[in-house]
Every structure is written in C-alpha cells, then in structure tokens.
C-alpha cells in the first residue's frame, strides 16, 4: 500500500552527494545515511524528500526494507509522520523568513532602497580602533585575528576616534569599542578622561611590557576594562612574578608549545582567555583546532543557530575595524576597505551590506555545499582564509553507514 512520509516542520533534511542527514533541534536527534552503497529505491526516496516542491514529503510503499526502517526511525523519533498517499498534507521545511532579506534583492536600486530603510547603526556590535605607532616605518605589521597592535608610523587620531564613538552613541547604537594600543601617548589620557561616561562600552588592549603598568593602572582607575595581551613570542617571566600584571589577559596560542605553556601557567586570580591565531600553523590547526565529525554530532545547534549560519557570518557580522591609516574594514583581515574615517558610519555599513565583503559570507564553497554538515558548522573564519583551507573541519567523508540516533 502506498503511503506518504511527511517530515515535521522542525526537521532539517540535507540530501548531499555522499550522505543524507536528518536533524531535529527540538529533540536533538540526528539520523545520518551513507549513500555509497544505498539501494536505488532509498536513494530515490531521499531525492523525492529533498525536492523543494515536494515540501518535505515522499511517497513509499512497504516493500522496501531500508525505506521502511528509515521511516520507522523518523516517525519513532518524532521527525516525521506517515499519511495516506493521496493526502494533501505537506511540511513547511524550516527556513528563515527575513523581512528585507538582501540575498533576494538583486536589482541595485531595490537593494539600495532596502538598505536605506534599515537602521544600520543598530546592527553594529563592535568597532576595533587600531591606533598604530611605535615604529618609524610606514609599513604595517600584519594584523592578527584578534585585537593585537598594528605597528606603523601612521596613527589614528584620538579626535577621529572620539567623533566616531559620539556618532554611534547619538544614534542609540549598542556598540562596544575596542581601542588597540601600539604605544602610549598623552592624547590617550585626554581621550580616556573624555570618554569616561561610556566607560562600560570601551575596552583597551595592549601588549604586555613593563611600560604599560602605569597606563593600565590609570585606565583601570577610571573604570575601563584593560586587556593585556600575552604573546609567547615575547618573553614573559615578569608576568608570572609580578602581581601588577594580574588582570584580564588574552594568551595567544600559535602551536602546541604555547598551549602547553598556557596550561602549565595555572595562574590564580587572573582571567586568562586563550586565543588561537592562524600564523603558518596549519598542522597545529588540523590537530587541535579543526572540528571533528564526533564533535559535530555531539553538538546540538538550535534552529536559530542553523538559520544564522545559513544567512550571516557570525564571526564578522556587526564588526568594523579601523586601521591606523584611517581605512575601515568589515573583516579583521583588513583586505577590502569599505570606507575611511570622516565618512558617516551608517554609509560605511551600507557599503558592506550592499557588497557583502564579510558580514554575510556564509559557508557556500563547493566542498561545504556537498557536505551534510554545511549549516551545522560555524561560519567561515578568517583563520581558514589565512591557512588557505576551505573548511574548518579536518575530515569530510568518514561516516559509517547506518542510522545514528
């Protein structure tokens, strides 16, 4: 007897070249199928189920054992229902419906109009100001994927920083500001005193050295958050012995040795966040950072998180980076400028939204498009670009055949 399988409205189903995956966030259930040795009927059944116009439905009869087993598992786990084959029942497969979704607005005029209607300042999460300085060279040191100082002769003016912050604040944006210092100068003190009313929105980042002690204490006395960056490439025995450095810190990790040192330090009374940066260390990433399939299967992303992965880049969204030369970027890489200091920030943001250099870059490369974990994985990261890889996982096609519930 022919029947129809109808997926539940909350079940995600991805049917890719090598695998098929069912996932229901409400109940945190995965079912993964390897398609390598799959019989033709089950293959066709999955194809039917994934056709957009079939809306999560596929007809089947009771003669095929593998289809029956799959449908039984789906129904048993609340991921689908069985109805009469003539029924008009169908699913509304989970997908985000966003008013003014720029993905679907291709005509330039319509896209500009849509962006002009958005309070773009409300989308802003953070601005990183790289102040620069501390070297006679006009060249830049390479920015890391974190608030790490850029050394160059060029310097961002504190007046410009102030104007930008005031602009954001007057539009009732809930943005936070990170000031990344390369050197300590008098203007910084004037700036810090002037901005004290919004001290909770501003934090200062500086690389560990003996010179920073007094300015760190000064900023902290005004109530600012100060983060001291610990780079293992710079000797730091002092840090361990001197209680004055015991403050919020970020510990930069590039390799297994750094990781070992971090664990060995075992510092009490200090908040120490490890930050892994990509820096010619692909092997380390492969062994210690990239995601494994086991980790993915243990994760239980919500529907909302999957939607976010499908539409925006969670690493980049809402972030701006302003470099010592006044150029503004939407990604920490600092490759494509979207404006410069002096332009209204709303205009700069609109350029990013229009062109999508970073904020809406999703995991849509060829490898990921063929993978069932495409939308379960985190958004593409700058680290992947720097390392020259297209995915954040270390294995692609190693799922054992079977139903894993």
């Amino acid at each position: 007897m022919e029947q129809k399988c109808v997926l539940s409205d909350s079940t995600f189903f991805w049917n890719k070249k090598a695998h098929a995956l069912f996932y229901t966030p409400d109940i945190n259930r995965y079912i993964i199928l390897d398609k390598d040795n799959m019989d033709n009927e089950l293959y066709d059944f999955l194809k039917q189920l994934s056709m957009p116009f079939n809306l999560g439905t596929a007809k089947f009869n009771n003669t095929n054992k593998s289809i029956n087993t799959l449908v039984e598992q789906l129904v048993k786990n609340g991921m689908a229902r069985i109805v009469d084959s003539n029924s008009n029942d169908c699913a509304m497969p989970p997908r985000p419906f966003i008013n003014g979704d720029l993905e679907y607005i291709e005509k330039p005029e319509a896209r500009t109009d849509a962006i002009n209607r958005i309070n773009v300042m409300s989308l802003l999460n953070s601005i990183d100001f790289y102040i620069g300085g501390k070297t006679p060279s006009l060249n830049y040191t390479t920015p890391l994927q974190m608030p790490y100082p850029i050394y160059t002769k060029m310097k961002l003016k504190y007046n410009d920083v102030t104007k930008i912050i005031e602009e954001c604040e007057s539009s009732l944006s809930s943005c936070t500001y990170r000031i990344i210092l390369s050197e300590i100068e008098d203007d910084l003190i004037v700036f810090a005193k002037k901005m004290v009313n919004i001290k909770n929105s501003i934090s200062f980042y500086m690389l560990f050295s003996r010179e920073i002690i007094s300015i760190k204490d000064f900023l902290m006395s005004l109530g600012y958050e100060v983060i001291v960056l610990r780079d293992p490439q710079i000797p730091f025995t002092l840090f361990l012995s001197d209680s004055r450095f015991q403050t919020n810190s970020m510990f930069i990790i590039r390799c297994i040795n750094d990781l070992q040192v971090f664990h060995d330090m075992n510092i009490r009374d200090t908040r120490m966040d490890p930050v892994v940066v990509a820096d010619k260390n692909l092997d380390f990433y492969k062994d210690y950072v990239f995601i494994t399939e086991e980790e993915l299967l243990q994760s239980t992303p919500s529907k909302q998180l999957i939607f976010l992965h499908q539409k925006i880049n969670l690493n980049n969204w809402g972030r701006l980076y302003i470099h010592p030369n006044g150029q503004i970027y939407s990604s920490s890489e600092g490759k494509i400028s979207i404006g410069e200091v002096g332009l209204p920030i709303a205009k700069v943001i609109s350029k990013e939204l229009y062109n999508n250099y970073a904020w809406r870059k999703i995991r849509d490369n060829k490898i990921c498009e063929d993978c069932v974990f495409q939308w379960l994985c985190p958004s593409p990261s700058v680290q992947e670009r720097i390392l020259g890889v297209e995915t954040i996982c270390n294995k692609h096609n190693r799922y054992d055949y079977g139903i894993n519930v």
Partner: protein
Amino acid sequence: MDCKNWVSDKHILQNLVNLGNLCFEVTDACNLACHYCVYRDLYLDHDERTGKYMSFEMGKTIMNYLASIWSSKLSGKPKDITTVSFYGGEPLLNMTFITNMINYITSLNSKREFRYGMTTNAILLDRYADYLADKNVQLTISLDGDEMASGHRVNHNENSSFEIVFRNIKNLKERHPAYFDKSVQFNSVLHNLNDVHSIRVFIFKEFGKYPSISAINPRGLDPKKENEFMNMYKEYSKSIYEAPDIDKLRRDLFYYDPLTRRLAQEIIKLSGNHYEGYLDFISNNKNTNRNYFPCPGTCIPFSRKLFITVNGKILQCERIGQENQLGTVTKTDVKLDYSYVAQFFNNKLNELYGQCSKCAAIDFCNTCVYNTSISEFGNRYCKNFKEKFDYSELKKENRIYLSKHPELYNKIAETLILI
C-alpha cells in the same frame, strides 16, 4: 485589570526621527461626491467637511518642527528619506499649498531626501500634469474600472466623472510616458458595480498597470446607513472566486489573494521562522512581547506616518477616526507632547488588553485598535475576539493550499514584505 506601558515617549521620539511619511490633508473639499467616500454621510468618524484649505503657514510650521528634530538626532540609517504626501478631499484643489510646500522643502537644503506623493481623483490632472511630472510626484489615481464600474464616482450633481478622468489619464500617459511608467499607480474600490477581474483587465488594457483593490471601508459606519452600505459592499475574496480564470488571477494577485495571504500569515505569525529584519534575526529575541501585545495589527504612533488634518489635528494615520487626535498644528506652533502620545496609545491598547489576553486567536491577529468598536455602554471591544480558535484547522487548510501551490513557499521567502 493590569494597565501596561506598551510604548514610551522615547519610542515616539525615535519614530519622529525616522519618520517615513508626512501626510497633509491639504483640503477637505472635493470636486467629486463618491457614494462610498469615507468623508461623506455614510460615516460618522470624521470632522465635518466645510470646504477648508490648509494654509502654507501650517505646513511650514510642522516642517520646521520636524527639521529641528532631524538635525539634532541621528536616525542610524544610511540615508534618511521622507515621503511628503498630499491627501484630501481632492488635493489638486489646493495646488497653492502643494507648490509652496515643495518649494519650501527644497529651500531647506536638508540632507534628508524628500519624495512626494499624492492620491487624486484626476479631475484636475490635465491642469497640473506637467508640474507633477517635473517634481516626480508619486501619483495614486483612484479609478474603479470602466465607465460602468466607476458608477459610484460621481460629481456633486450625480454625473459620472469617468469621461474626464479617463481622458486626463490618457493625456498624462501620452505627455509624460516615462513618468507615467515609473510613478503612477492606480487604486480601485470594489463594490456592487465592478469585480476584481474586470477592474484588473480594464486598467491593464488601457494603462498597462494593475491597480491595488480594496473593499469599501466598514469602519466608522453610521448604523442608520447600513443598508445603503450593504447594497454597495462586495467581498474581495468572493469576487476572486467569481473570476473566469481564477488560477491565473490568484497567481497574479500573489499576496493580494486572501489564501496566499493567510498562508504567509501562518509563516509570519505561527511558524517561529519569521524575522522583522536583520536586527530581529541576530538578536534572537524574536516574538518577545508580540504574543502579548494587544491588537497586534496596530502601528506605534508615527512608526509609519504622521498625518495632519486640514483642521490642524495630528493623527498617526489617515485611515483612523479623526477623534484620535495626538497633537495640534497651528500657523505658528506645534503642540505634540510625546508622553501624552505614548499614554494615549497605551490607554487605547489597555482598553482591549483584558480581551486580547483571553483571545484564542491573538497569535494570528492583525487587528488595529482603531478598527475596534465601542459598545452601547461605552466599552471598547473587538469584533474579531475568539474564545476558541482552531489553529490545527487553519494549518491543515494552509497545507492543502500549499501542496497545490508549492512554489509559494519559496516565493513568500524571497519577496517577503510587511503584510
């Protein structure tokens, strides 16, 4: 019963900073006397029409008031755009006001971009077509179809307006084809003399455009005139069912087909997959308050529009009763107290809060508080209140419809607008 503050003075100010539409009732005079007009004796919820014309000074005063807000606060948008609309009566009867206002706004040299819009019956269109095209005024022309279908659109002597209107529109199209193509649209009222199909066929054949169509307004009706109203009234969905090629018509109507609209509303209101925009999407606080906001179809004052009547009343919309005054504009002064506006609005919602909180259909509601009714004891009540509402039945009906038109699911996602 609990009273809540749904909005505050800050919301009101923020909406004024972001004001998208400033609408002037430039006159309450009209050169037509359409039988279904909301400002005639069929309805009670409007000020007496005395043939007044709005003075330029009044328009200038409100513009200066808003300009000072716009210069002191940032909207957060890449470009601030406000459409200034001219409404009536028949706005072309007060062209002095319109030309003066456009000149004045231009002279402000504001960073804000101003666009202009007008709803007209087109009787005087031949006289002002060149000016309107020159200023690229977005024109909405009221036309109910062919001569027979436009039978309720008559002048004060009960003579048909069709011939003059039709000729004027043809002339406009001929003289300013690019403007006509880009900036002119049609609005038709559905009634006993026309139907959805024939209106669309006629206007498309003659002018190459499809009109927006709405049924005769039922709000504010004089109970004594109910028979007269019912004689003219035609139900929109019924008219679609009576069309000769219903499938094609429904495809063409898309959101304007009630069944597609119902499906879209399920997605928007019940699926948990709809987001008001990117901020709503990223902040992950969707549906906060929405389920508990009384009369969810109500706009917060000035979130879409600020309407000024010819008598200087400030209202939040031209489609609500004119007794809902939020402030006043005179030739010299604007009286608009944001706290009062917020309180007025909160009170209106609170009048229905008790009923809404018990309504089984609140999750699917689109009612505007200003479209609710007052009982003989003076209490506000909602005619759409439901003690029981079968969501499963609604979902089942939508599934049946969707399975027959599966393409709609993608299309709704890709063309999502505020419904």
